[in-house]
Structures are given as C-alpha cells and as structure tokens.
C-alpha cells in the first residue's frame, strides 16, 4: 500500500489556505462537513458551464451529456460501495433524506402496530427521529441497544432485544459524536438471523472506511456526499434490488412515472421510481468526482493516514491537564473523531477560544442527545480529522487548549 502524500492533498483543498483570525486555518470539523478538493470544484464548474440541461428527457446534446454525467456518477458511487447493480443506488438529499425515504416507502407498508424497530443510543438524530415519526403513525415500538462507559454498543442482550416483532435494526457504522466504530457485521448477521432488515447509517462510515454493502450485511445503506469531499444536498440510499422493487414510491412527480392516467399511474423502474422531480444533477456530478478523487488516492492509504493523526491527537490531548476524552480507548474501535471536555470550561467557550486562534472545532451535542445524556453532559468539544489533517494541526489544537487553560485556569 502506498502512503498518502498529505502535502499534495492539502494543496488541492483551496479552503485550507484561508487565514482565520490572523492564523492559518486549522480545520477540525470535517465530521460536520468536509472541505472540497479542486477536482470536485472543477467538475461542478464544468457541469454548470458546459453541460447544464435536464436529465432523462431531452433529445438534444446537452441533455445527453447531463444524463451521462448524472448516471455516470451513480455508477461510480455504486462501484465504490460494492454494489453490483447501479440501479440499487438512489440519489437523495443526503443521509437524512435516505433514511426518511426508507421510513416512508418501506416503513409505512411494512411496519404495523406492535412491531419493533431496534436502534442504538449512539445514533445521530437523523437515525432516530424518522423512526419516531414512523412509530407514531404505525403504533410500532422503538427499542435501543445501550452503550457502555466507553461509548461502545453492549451486545450481550442483543438476542433479547431482537424479537419476532423486530422489523428493522437501524444503526450507524461510525458514531459522529464519539467516533465509535460499531461492529455492524456482527449486529447485521444476528439481526438478519432473527428475521429483521438492517439499515446502516453510513454518514461517517463511508468517510472513514472502505465500504462494501454486501460484506456489511446491510439491506439499506445511507450516505452523504458533503462529508466525503462532495457538495452539500446530495447523498444516496443503497438498497437490495428486490427491496427497492417491492417498495412503493415515496414522493410523486415527474421523472418517477411510467404512464400517468387520470386516477392512477404506473412507476418508472428503480432507481428512478424514488427520484421524483428534477434531481440535484450538479450535486451528483460533484459526488461522482469526489468518489473518483478518493478512489485515486486509495481508501486504505487515507484510513492509515487518519489513524496516525488520530493516535497523535489522543496522545496530545491526554497530556493536556483537565481534558477528558470520551469514546473507545482502543484505536481499533475508533474513527478519526475525538470528543472531549475540559475542566469547567464549557465546550462553546473552548470553541470560541480555539476559533480566535484559527482552529475550527465543533461544540455542542452533535445531534446525538442520547449519547450526551448517557454521559450526563450537555455538550462536548469535538475535533474531527480527515485526509488533509496533519500532526501539525493537532499541535495547534493542543496549543489552543493551553489558552483555554490560561483563561479558565
């Protein structure tokens, strides 16, 4: 495996050259959204400047080009997540859009009163609230896999949580709040053995690992483009073909129909059945370019690099007086996200002080209030690392935290 040339990578991300509050920007908030490399920006630009037209309908040259670019991105993404059939990839607005699609198009027809949906305490709100809405409409019940004091799933009781009423197990691949890497394969195998379907929230997982949806044992896999070098407003749902075929459309409109009569219509084949209206064509093109970019660098090299920075960060933070890091102690169970608190300095205050030195982190509940409750806190400071971060970035973080200590003493 080749090593990642981080200097070259950094040079391709124009935002990283920004100066913030008099210091070169250190961007440690990629778990919220990643920065975008030049090839992605160029692809977006080229689409708008040269190819802009609506897809799947025009006979003219530009429409052909736009369609080719849009469907090419789908193919690229399908290959990247190990899907054998590009028709299994539905473009959505993001992970949230993908999960809501499943909750509506699959959930409303397949979940009944008394059925159970099994979630985990680690979930992002986007993998909780859609199921609460579904449960309210169907009378289904939500159950949760608990976590231990390192923020890892407690799987001892899983066989009790999985009952004959469990219709779906929905869990994140990687926790955005703590960085915990969940044993998705194991949970999925046990869930499927119990007759439940498995939805994997890959919003963070697709960023920090090589994804193979079949190997994971997923029935549904949701991801967001903007966390993996792509634009905002684009993401995807992958699902097994027979599931997608069996599901009713979620939204009606153009693009998703076969024929329209006065009282009823028939649907276009998948994936178009789930893509009503003019899609986010440029977004898809940008996401395709992001996948191409990441593939060329190699996910293994990226993950290896992130691990090095993560290890260095955990060591650096451990040496700062008053810092408490949350999440798994073992590097093997962790992704490039570090959540921490520091004495009685509130995470927002930590973030303001770091920002004054050009270091961008996230502070708050990270859309994971169940996780915060578990640890009896309301917020953490979170530094998240990606392919363009370096050990020098970690040094700037640690230096910034010394300023926090000076002020909060």
């Amino acid at each position: 495996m080749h090593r990642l040339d981080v200097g070259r990578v950094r040079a391709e991300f124009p935002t990283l050259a920004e100066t913030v509050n008099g210091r070169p920007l250190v961007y440690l908030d990629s778990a919220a959204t990643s920065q975008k490399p030049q090839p992605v920006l160029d692809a977006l630009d080229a689409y708008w400047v040269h190819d802009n037209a609506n897809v799947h309908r025009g006979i003219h040259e530009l429409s052909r080009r736009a369609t080719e670019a849009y469907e090419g991105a789908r193919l690229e993404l399908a290959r990247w997540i190990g899907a054998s059939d590009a028709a299994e990839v539905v473009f959505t607005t993001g992970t949230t859009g993908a999960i809501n699609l499943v909750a509506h198009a699959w959930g409303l027809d397949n979940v009944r009163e008394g059925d159970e949906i099994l979630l985990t305490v680690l979930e992002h709100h986007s993998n909780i609230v859609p199921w609460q809405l579904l449960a309210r409409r169907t009378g289904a019940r939500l159950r949760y896999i608990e976590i231990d004091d390192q923020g890892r799933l407690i799987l001892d009781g899983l066989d009790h949580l999985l009952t004959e009423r469990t219709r779906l197990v929905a869990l994140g691949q990687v926790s955005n709040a703590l960085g915990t890497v969940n044993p998705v394969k194991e949970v999925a195998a046990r869930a499927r053995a119990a007759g439940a379907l498995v939805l994997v929230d890959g919003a963070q997982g697709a960023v920090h690992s090589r994804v193979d949806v079949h190997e994971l044992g997923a029935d549904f896999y949701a991801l967001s483009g903007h966390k993996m070098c792509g634009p905002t407003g684009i993401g995807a749902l992958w699902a097994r073909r027979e599931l997608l075929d069996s599901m009713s459309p979620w939204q009606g409109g153009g693009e998703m129909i076969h024929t329209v009569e006065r009282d009823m219509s028939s649907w276009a084949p998948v994936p178009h059945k789930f893509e009503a209206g003019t899609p986010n064509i440029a977004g898809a093109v940008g996401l395709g370019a992001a996948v191409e970019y990441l593939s060329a660098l190699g996910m293994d090299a990226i993950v290896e690099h992130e691990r090095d920075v993560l290890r260095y960060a955990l060591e650096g933070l451990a040496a700062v007086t008053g810092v408490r890091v949350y999440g798994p102690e073992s590097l093997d169970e962790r992704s490039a996200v570090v959540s921490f608190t520091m004495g009685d300095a509130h995470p927002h205050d930590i973030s303001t002080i770091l920002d004054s030195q050009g270091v961008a982190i996230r502070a708050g509940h990270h859309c994971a209030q169940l996780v915060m409750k578990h640890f009896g806190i309301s917020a953490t400071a979170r530094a998240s690392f990606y392919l363009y971060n370096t050990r020098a970035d970690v040094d700037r973080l640690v230096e910034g935290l010394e300023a926090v200590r000076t002020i909060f003493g």
Partner: protein
Amino acid sequence: METPPLNSLYQQLILEHYRNPRNRGELPDGTVEVHMRNPVCGDEIRLQLRLHDDHIAEARFVGHGCSISQASVSMMTTLLKGRSLDEAESLASRFTQMMHGDAEASRDPSMGDLRALAGVSKFPVRIKCALLGFDALQEALKRSAKGAEP
C-alpha cells in the same frame, strides 16, 4: 472578519459569576416560571420569579450552559429584585441594545455587572448565549402581563 482579543470577552467578572452563580436554585413559591432552551447548543435556563403586586420580589434560576449564558442570567437576577415589571422590561431592552453594540448602554450604571458582557457584542455567534436569560425574562414578563389582565 478578525475576532477581537479574547480578553474583551472573558472578563474575570464573567468567569466569577459562571463559577459562583447568584440566585441559583429553586424558588418554591414562585409565581411565574419560564423554561428557555437554545436548541442549537443545548444551553438551558429555567427562570422563576415571585411577583408582588407589579414588582419582582424574588428571581431565581437553574440551568446549564456556557460561561456567557450562565453568567448573564446570574448577573440579571441580581438586578431584578425590587424592580417593577416595567423596569425589568427596560433592563432587558437596554441589555439588547448593548448586545447590538450600543456603547452608551455599556456605560449605564443601572446595568450593574452586566456591563462586563459588553464585549460579547463583538462575537456575533455568542450574542444568543448572552440573551438566553433575557429571553426567559421577557417571556415571563409577557405572561405576567397577560395574567394580570382582567
């Protein structure tokens, strides 16, 4: 935009109120109670007032959040005791003016310790933190005025 020096934000008085909040705790015989939450950051304040005629006889709060939100509400409660509802309302609007950069408001002696928060106006993303307690106060005043209507 350049962020101004941090010492304009983190004044000692703010950290002192953050660590030793005044009037923190339950008010068992409160007459009006407002729960305010900033959903973006999770900061929370439950403000309780005991009203006597049109005066605030007692003000207490419980809550959690950043130094700015908690110090602000602590400072606010020290100024409310004995004030009329109208005076409390003008304190709230005076403070809002200060958050919008009104230098005169930041020199107004009637603002007491709250003047230490003047620097927050230079940190736009933190103004909401400083206003959380006053949002609760204004809601409490609104409810009290409604309750007083015949």
